[in-house]
Structure formats: C-alpha cells, structure tokens
C-alpha cells in the first residue's frame, strides 16, 4: 500500500525520557478530559461514528496531490476532524489515528506517542477549532478562510513543538532543525489548509446539516476560542523569534533549567569511563569482555539453531 510516513511522527529513541513523560502527562490529561466530555455529551452511538471517522482521516492521508519536483502534498486532517466532529471528538479521533500509526506501521514511537498525539492531535484541535469557533456565525467565505488559516497555523505549531521537543532532548541543534522543519511545514501546511478548505466547502455544499452550528455534537465553549487564539498567537510569535535567534531561546531554556536535564546529562556521562562503585578499571575491562562474550555466544547459538532449522525444514 502507498502509505508514506509524514515527517512529524517522531520515532522512539529521539526524545529523552523526561520530555516523553512530560508530554505523555499532558496528553493523558487532555485525552482523559476528552473521553469524559464525549461520554457525557454524546450518546454511545458517537463511539462507532468516531471510529469510522478516524478510519476516514487515516484513509484521507493517503490522498496526496502532486505539487512540483516529485514532492506531493500530504493531508494530516486534525483541523478538519475538529471542525466537523467537534474539538473533543477530534482529539479522540486523532489520538486513535496516531496510536494505530505507531502500533501497526511503526510510524512514530510508543514511548514518544504522548508527544506525537500532543503535536498532531491536541494542538491541531485547539488551534483549528478555536479559530474556527471564533467566526462560526460569520459568512461562509470568512469561515472557510479562517478554517484554512487555522489548518496552516496548526501544522506550523505542530512542527514548532516537534522541533522544540527534539531540541530539548539533545537530538538536534535548534538552529538547524527549526528553519528546516518550519520551512518544510510552511509548504505542507499550505496543502493542508487548501485541502481542508476544499473539503469543508464540498461538505457544506452537499450535507450542510453536518456543519450546522446548532448541532449539539460540536458544542465547545468559549474556552476553545481563548486557548485557540492564545496558542496560535504564541506559535506565530515564537516561530520567527526562535528561527531568527536560536541562541536566545537556548539561553532562556538553560536559565529555566530545561537544558540541564535535556542536554548536559547524557553528554557528561561519556568522558567519565570509571566505575562508580566498583572503582577499578580492571573489573570494568573484565565486565566488558564478559558482555562481549555473552553476546557473541548468543549470536552463534541462535544462528546455528536457525541454520539447522532451515536445513531440516
């Protein structure tokens, strides 16, 4: 099948434990809220619908369109899901999509899934829906334009947080990853925005009842507007600031003590090749030798067994 990994899915091993756990915590709180909200406001009927909608987002991500020079636009769908289904249901749907991409396709890791869900599910729902909710009673053209803008900002914000997570984990240099990620996603976000607008326009033309303002399934309070606008502003302000002056952000992070856990710890362990409590380099050499021997013997045994099995089978 023609499934292509999107550049936003962070694999395991790229984020440190601390960063992974912080974002798991945020994600668990938000998804837990989403579960209890949808359980309360929607009937059990909504659950199968959300499942099929999640499958829709997944399938729609395969519909890519050629741009230029062999690259193709790619659809993420977080904003569309949040606008059509409502923000809480949108979060749940995107959580399921990211989860299954990690479980079945190894597109994105398990330990870092909290960060991935946060970037691609929660941020997109808050920004995309929050901005759309602001103009929900306006004319059609304004609504579509804001939906498109929201989709673009949401994609950029996801790229921004992914870059920051990678940088806090000491995986990349900020001055390299940030311009690259934001540059690539400025284009991807454009495709995302255009497809979101086109899909919304099509749905509104054929089934206006689904996008009806008075549909109780899409109820979301003013909190969405406030947080959506605030987070969009934050993303819009941070991106150029950080791209133009990564050293400044680095200084802020180290002042706040983030980098202490993110960057320095793994680096400082390396030059120190002494044993903390054995205190003898001879023992460390013996230990290393023993480990090497175990790995080697294990490999030989496994290979031998497999060769024999192939012969007899």
């Amino acid at each position, binding site marked *: *099948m023609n499934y292509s990994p999107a550049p936003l899915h962070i694999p395991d*091993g*790229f984020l440190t*434990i601390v960063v992974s756990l912080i974002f798991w915590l945020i994600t668990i709180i938000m998804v837990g809220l989403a579960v209890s909200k949808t359980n309360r406001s929607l009937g059990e009927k909504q659950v199968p619908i959300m499942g*099929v909608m999640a499958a829709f987002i*997944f399938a729609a991500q395969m519909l890519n369109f050629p741009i230029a020079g062999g690259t193709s636009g790619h659809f993420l769908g977080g904003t569309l899901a949040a606008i059509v289904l409502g923000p809480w249901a949108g979060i749940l749907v995107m959580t399921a999509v990211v989860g299954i991409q990690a479980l079945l396709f190894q597109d994105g890791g398990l330990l870092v899934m909290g960060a991935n869900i946060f970037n691609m599910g929660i941020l997109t729902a808050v920004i995309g829906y929050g901005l759309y909710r602001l103009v929900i009673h306006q004319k059609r053209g304004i609504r579509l334009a804001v939906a498109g803008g929201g989709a673009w900002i949401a994609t950029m914000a996801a790229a921004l947080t992914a870059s920051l997570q990678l940088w806090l984990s000491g995986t990349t240099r900020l001055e390299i990853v940030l311009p690259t990620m934001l540059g690539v996603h400025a284009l991807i976000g454009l495709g995302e925005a255009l497809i979101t607008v086109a899909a919304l326009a099509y749905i509104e033309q054929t089934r206006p009842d689904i996008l009806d303002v008075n549909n109780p399934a899409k109820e979301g309070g003013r909190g969405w507007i406030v947080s959506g606008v605030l987070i969009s502003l934050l993303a819009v302000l941070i991106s150029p600031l950080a791209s133009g002056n990564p050293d400044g952000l680095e200084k802020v992070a180290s002042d706040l003590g983030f980098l202490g856990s993110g960057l320095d710890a793994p680096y400082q362990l390396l030059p120190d*090749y002494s044993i903390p409590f054995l205190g003898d380099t001879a023992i460390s050499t013996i230990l290393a030798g023993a480990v090497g021997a175990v*790995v080697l013997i294990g490999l030989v045994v496994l290979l031998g*067994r497999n060769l024999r099995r192939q012969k007899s089978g």
Partner: protein
Amino acid sequence: MHVDVFDQYHFTQSKVHDLDPRIKVLITVLFILSNALLPDGSWPAFALAWLFLLIANDQAGLGLGFTLKRSVVALPFALVAVSAIFSPYGSPLAVWDLGFITLYPTDLGLIRFFSIMVRSWLSVQVAILLVATTQFSDLLHALEHLRLPRTLTTIIAFLFRYLFVLTNEVFRILRAREARSAGLPGVKGGGSLPWRIKTTGSMVGQLFLRSYERSDRIYQAMISRGYTGHIRTLNPHHMNRRDWLILFISIFLLVIIQFVGWVR
C-alpha cells in the same frame, strides 16, 4: 487491501505467540523504556538488548532477520538527528567548510548520533515483533486490561476494522480519477495546481460523506445484532504461571542490560 496484510503471521504457533498479550505489551514498553534510559555510547548494553531481541525473534519462529528487514521504516527520520553530530560539547574531529557554513563534527556528537540511531532501531524492531505476534483484537483487549479508556479502545477497534474498507474506498476514488484523467503521451495532463487542490479537496469531502453515511448504517446494523458498546474476543485472557515467569525473566534481563549500560 485486506486485513491479511498484517495478520499473515498471527496464526502460527510459537512461544511468543502464545504469551498473554498483556505480557507482550508490557515487555515491549519496558524494552523501549530501557533503551531510552541507557546512556549514550553504552555499546555493550545495546548489543545485549539486540541479543534479547534476537532471542525473542527466534522464539517467535519468524527467523532472526524478520524484524530487521521491516525496521527500515524508521530510517527517513534519521535525517533529523544528523545535526547532533555537530554537537558543541565534544572536541572537534574535523572541519567541513561548505562555503556558507562551517561544520565541526565532534566525538561526542558522533556518539550521540549513533546512540540515537541504535535506540530507535531497537525500539522499532520490538514494536514490529509485538504486532507480528499478536492479533489486533487481543492487543486491544490487552490495552483495555491495562486501563486504557473503553471509549478509546472501541474507537481504535472501529478504526482498525474500517481502515481496510475505507482504504479500498480511497483506491476506488483514485481509480475514478485515473479513469477520467486520460492524457496524451508527452503532454502534461491535468489542470493547474489550484484545480488539482480543489479536486483533491472534493475527493476528501466525498470520502468523508461516504464514511459518515456508512458509519450511520454500520451502527444501525450493529444495534440490530445486539451490540452493547463492547467488542469481544474469543481468546480467554488468563495469566498463567508461564506468563509471569517470562515477565520476570524479561525484567531481570532488562535490569542486567541497564546495569551493563550504567556501570563501566
């Protein structure tokens, strides 16, 4: 596309296939956690972790190279970590003058880069092994036992089921586009970029409506067949003594790997 794309390895019997899915999920997560906890450059520990993985592969009867062959999916993301090579914390090994920028690859940077790659490569493989040896319904059941909210597991179950139906729907839509986009050889087909985007948007909208209406019908059909909001599996999930034993052995081995990684 059919469910068989993923399920073709599930129906063989092996010691790994027979394990309780909860144990498999736990060991997978612990293994990934252990990799993440290992310090940079602890090659002996990484080698031991790889051996652990090979033994699991072997016990699953899929062949030693099974997960290795499928692990290339994680490679594209490696590009992101390349800049770690130029870490300012180590001593420079060389000077690369590219004209517009001068790069200094450092020893610590290289160690960091390869450690990230090895961690990611090991973690991807254990996840591949989990999926290859566990039926999806069992996996969901395990997640439910591990306190994932029922709403979420049900959504994922539906997602998994209709993934294949809707993927085929996508293929139908794409085929329809192909069929209506005949072009002369050598002549650029299709319209302008805005036209293409509008067409793709209509395709997404069309797919959405088909899915939405289908989900309505599905729900009616399920209700009439006695759906109570819970998806069942035929496999009973009882932890027996062997499951506990495997779990403890695995934890013990992971502790040894951590020990080897941190003590040197």
